[in-house]
């Protein structure tokens, strides 16, 4: 009578081994699925870099390095592809945006992190998060319909488009991002540092400027650089208020153009196999290159082992 029982036991054991094997297969499969998806992000980045640079570098078959980077004459119909106006424009616009945005964003971050009562914090933080999500085209639309008429009235210029309008719109867009990340950085400063400062008789201002801000400096720099990457790459908000003319606009109120706005205005009208198109891709590659360099700087800022 022992036989069937033995038989059942063996069967049971076999089933169990099968189950175990399944379980471990699933475990491994899941691991590899995660690995593959992580890898695919790297693949995506590399294919973007390769596709864009491959097309972009074709421009140097017809245009010399010197002309592309240092000539300010952008006249595709006469085969002149000097991108200096756009490159300088992008750098200048980013610089202007930073100058306007950083003090305000820092003030907001300090206010939220150090001064606001809890209930106000709980309102302001979600609000900043919300503002990050407002579509850039809406900011551009605001600039076009409210800011530009306002600039026209106050300064008496005919057009109103230009760096000033673009920088203001970008400031408004980037502000929530920079403020929110700086706020996190300030909150991460250990409380006992502050208490030591107060115990020595410092006022709040002294504690903030001499202890908290220096301690939070890497985080705040990261916030500013992340804001920069957004400002450099922003397209639609800028395109609506910058005027889209290939000329320098140092005086802030002249219509001008930057890399992104020039790409989006012209890319749909050109043949894919033309030097013009390659030049636009080269400009996109420049944007990509700048943002990658900025990310490498951020990674260097971070303390090791984090």
């Amino acid at each position: 009578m022992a036989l069937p029982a033995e038989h059942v036991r063996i069967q049971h054991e076999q089933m169990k081994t099968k189950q175990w094997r399944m379980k471990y297969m699933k475990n491994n499969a899941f691991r590899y699925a995660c690995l593959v998806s992580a890898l695919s992000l790297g693949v995506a980045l590399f294919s973007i870099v390769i596709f864009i640079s491959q097309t972009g570098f074709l421009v140097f078959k017809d245009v010399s390095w010197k002309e592309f980077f240092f000539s300010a004459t952008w006249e595709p119909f006469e085969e002149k592809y000097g991108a200096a106006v756009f490159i300088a424009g992008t750098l200048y616009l980013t610089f202007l945006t930073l100058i306007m945005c950083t003090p305000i964003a820092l003030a907001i971050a300090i206010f939220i992190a150090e001064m606001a009562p809890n209930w106000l914090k709980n309102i302001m933080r979600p609000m900043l998060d919300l503002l990050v999500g407002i579509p850039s085209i809406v900011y551009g639309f605001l600039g076009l319909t409210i800011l530009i008429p306002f600039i026209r009235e106050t300064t008496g210029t005919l057009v109103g488009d230009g760096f000033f309008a673009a920088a203001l719109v970008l400031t408004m867009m980037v502000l929530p991002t920079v403020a929110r990340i700086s706020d996190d950085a300030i909150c991460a400063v250990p409380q006992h540092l502050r208490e030591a400062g107060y115990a020595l008789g410092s006022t709040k201002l002294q504690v903030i400027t001499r202890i908290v801000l220096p301690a939070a400096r890497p985080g705040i720099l990261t916030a500013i650089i992340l804001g920069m990457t957004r400002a450099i790459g922003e397209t639609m908000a800028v395109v609506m208020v910058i005027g889209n003319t290939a000329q320098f606009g140092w005086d802030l109120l002249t219509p001008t153009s930057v890399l992104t706005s020039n790409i989006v205005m012209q890319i749909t009208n050109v043949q894919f196999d033309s030097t013009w198109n390659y030049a636009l891709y080269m400009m996109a590659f420049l944007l990509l290159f700048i943002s990658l360099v900025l990310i490498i700087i951020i990674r260097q800022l971070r303390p090791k082992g984090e």
Partner: protein
Amino acid sequence: MRESLFHSHRKAIASAIYTNRLFHMFVGMITVSTFILIIGLLYTILGKGLPKLSLDFLFTLPNELEAGGGVGPFLFNSFYVLILSLILSLPIGIGAGIFLAEYAPNNRFTEFVRTSVESLASVPSIVFGLFGYVLFVEYVGIGLTIIGAAVTLALLNLPVLARVTEEAIQAVPQDIREASLALGATKSQTILKVVLPAALNGILTGISLVACRAFGESAIIILAGGTSTSGFMWDFNLLSQGGTLPVHLWYVQSEALVPDATEIAQKSAAILVLIVLIISFTVRFPLWIQTLITKIKATPRKS
């Protein structure tokens, strides 16, 4: 009598206290005025657009020449492209996040993955757009399509999803994992049934962030999806043109010939802001309720 330190430094201390007070006022004023300005602007958008809004506008076809057209296909495309891009990017983005948080060994490869996630997150959207254009229009040769727009948009979503998932998972306490492993669960079971549910709040907030961004994205759509639609409502064909509402707003504002272009633009902007608000609120509302409940439960009862 010798003066105390306080007396000899009275002026310095007084001025320190004074500047401190000034600083408080200054920072407070900047913050409050910035908030008032931004909220005022958003209010203007909603105030100008919402009162004129009608259901008709949301569902009828646009009209190229006469006033009274709607934005039906564009609104539909917006959601269609958004949902497609989320379907494509959610598994990969969350998978990558899980890998970084749970499996990633501390070596070169992980460093490489992390760097690509961060770099991908900072790639300008117009570069994604150009990539989509090269890939789908030039190499695959299907032209400007909904599927092209969705895939390119998914690339934009991926790094944010990966980062948010990683952060949410890292915030889950270690002992929950250990408890699950001690009960004999495999690592994948632990992650899927214990860690992910515990990290769900953070992941959901991240998804809402991504959804808002993808919904309002226009540079990518112009390059990979085009500026127009197939021209009729409820078109699920993946190969028809994928113009979305933000793109339409740009088009109407810059090139359209319709006499009521301004009004269409105002209404579209209002819809965009409204939908972004709705997306953020629907995700955060349950979270708020939950924190409220835990707060109420946590307060000690009087006995």
